[in-house]
């Protein structure tokens, strides 16, 4: 079991994208209830979750574009 966890851990260190996706989805668990509360019942819980994910995606794109601006030679 521990070996399997260590294997997953080392794989995550190599493959960054799944880790970022996982962290983003986890963060959405905090963000989505806030979105749901802010819309005062206009949205369902599912819609609030997807909207939260869209907000995170937009922020991630903005961070990516900042990264391109500062390290353009890598793109």
């Amino acid at each position, binding site marked *: 079991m521990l070996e399997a966890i260590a294997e997953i851990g080392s794989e995550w260190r190599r493959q960054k994208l799944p880790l970022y996706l996982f962290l983003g989805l986890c963060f959405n668990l905090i963000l989505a209830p806030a979105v749901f509360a802010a819309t005062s019942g206009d949205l369902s819980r599912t819609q609030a979750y997807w*909207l939260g994910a869209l907000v995170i995606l937009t922020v991630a794109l903005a961070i990516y*574009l900042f990264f*391109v*601006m500062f390290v353009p*030679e890598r793109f």
Partner: protein
Amino acid sequence: MTSMNDSPKPFRVPSGTRDSRRHTPKVEMKGLYQRAVKESFVKLDPRIQVRNPVMFVVWVGTLVTLLLTFDPNLFGTLQADVNQQRLLNGLITFILLFTIVFANFAESVAEGRGKAQADALRATRSDTIAKKILPTGSVQEISSTELRRGDLVKVVAGDMIPADGEIIAGIGSVDESAITGESAPVLKQPGTDIMSSVTGGTRLLSDELTVRITADPGQGFIDRMIALVEGAERTKTPNEIALTVLLAVLTLVFLIVVANIPPITGYVASFLSTATSEQAAADLRNGASVAIMISLLVALIPTTIGGLLSAIGIAGMDRVAQFNVIATSGRAVEACGDINTLVLDKTGTITLGNRLAAEFIPVNGHGMEDVAQVALDASVFDETPEGRSIVALAERSGAKVSFDPKLAEGVEFSARTRMSGTDLDSKEIRKGAVDAIRGFVRSRGGHVPPTLDEAYERVSKLGGTPLAVCQNNEIYGVIYLKDIVKPGLKERFDQLRRMGVRTIMLTGDNRITASVIAQEAGVDDFIAEATPEDKIEVIRSEQAQGKLVAMTGDGTNDAPALAQANVGLAMNSGTQAAKEAANMVDLDSDPTKLIDLVTIGKQLLITRGALTTFSVANDIAKYFAIIPTIFAAAGIGALNVMGLKSANSAIISALIYNALIILVLIPLALKGVQFRPLTADQLLRRNILIYGVGGVIAPFIAIKLIDVILPFS
């Protein structure tokens, strides 16, 4: 600096017009577009898309709109017909997908052309059997892939040269058509700065050579060329990096703007629902739906230049390769466009390499016949074009060889003695540089007549090269060797001047001759009696003034200057040291090509600038197409100057235009904007007028046309 010597050069003059010269290996373009179409879809891989920030944003947008096609109410309930929304979102997804595919197609076509060229070259690089000379002197047959730098190989007539190397013994004709496209064989010989290097994959046609290998397997000239044209070693150039930053900034700005529209719209809609009507508020909210916001974002970010940027760069490299020039990087090609100063050798670059005898000028009381006779006797063993032209002129003047050539001995020209001639039992007949002949005559106890200087000055003032002729201790006269400025060069230099490029001519000739040639050719400056060291000094002094300098060279002593110059173009006929120091190698060994490279570099920069201007200018029309229609409920419907039918029609029309314009501009990106010799200011004005104003007007017309054609109500 061999090209500055007065010595004849075994230059092969490439045949045909330059535009007509291409690599001999026939580039297989069949199936290029089919492969490019397939490759366009393969490139949808996010790991590839992430390298292009603009298209990656479109790619992410496509995924989101795809989700919205399945569930239009994914991010909130829209007060509209779900099926209609699904159709609209599906159409948006489809168009966005093809926007990316078209951009990928442009890149794939450019890459495909390079790969086709690489395949043709690869066909010439077959493994051959090399005759390796062992330390014991015996010969062992091994595969060419087993050869290492420093090995000695024997090549006999008919053999393929197994790897790049320098000739250390033997003279032979080599067929270099596999890499240069020239069918005429080239005479190769050791010990000279030029024509002593051979390239792997070429074929020895006559005699036998001993070659020292200068490149390990996979590091040879053709290997490097393959890697370059395939784009394997392609890195972003400074200009591309700057443009990538600009595109990322623009994309980020529009991303922030578009992301803020829905909250603001929500606020305005809540105000409208209380102040005016619920329907107006609902229309406004629908106008700011996620799918429409993504459409607006894609329409506003510079997708045209974002999609074509890499294709322009690859096509630039391809154009250079088509000119039979190997660039070590895209950076070198781009640097050509920024060049301020061209340092050019006179002989072979500005004037034709072969000077011809035009006149005999007698001195010291001798007659014309005497000079012609001595000049003929001195040139009997001279096989250079100059020597042959002296023989022809003397024979036309009635002279005949006065001795049996079997009983005479030829004296070869050398850079040290600067003269050549014939030795007979009792006679030493010489022709050469006036100073050298003067010294020769004095060493034999003769005297120098004052009329020699007059003849020397007369020839120099005509822009020719004077060669004195003497027999034993007596000077007979001067041969006027006429330097012929290459046709059309004056106009080329005029063009360069208009573009702000300064030309400097370097020559070993005296000041008077140099000034006449400089004036005739139309160069901006010249350095006479130049030594090899002068070349690097000129480059350093120009660079100290903040200028970018380009130069050509072929000799080992040119290597430091080639390395120092911002663009160093080495001749393929030159030494390995020169080729390694330069950042470009001309396979045709035509130094004039440096001027063409400046043109290609400028064309590359102009194309990139023009398409960037066009792409940004397009935004205005797309903005006027989308914003007034989607927010008509907010009272800005009057801004719908194109009179587009509906919001849906406006969005789809703008996106279709956005995708199609990439496809339409692919030929321009690959071929390059037509080059005109104008100053930077004139080019900027022209660019703004054609691609700026055109970029504003064209989409208005195109979007309106698409809107009329579309069946949306």
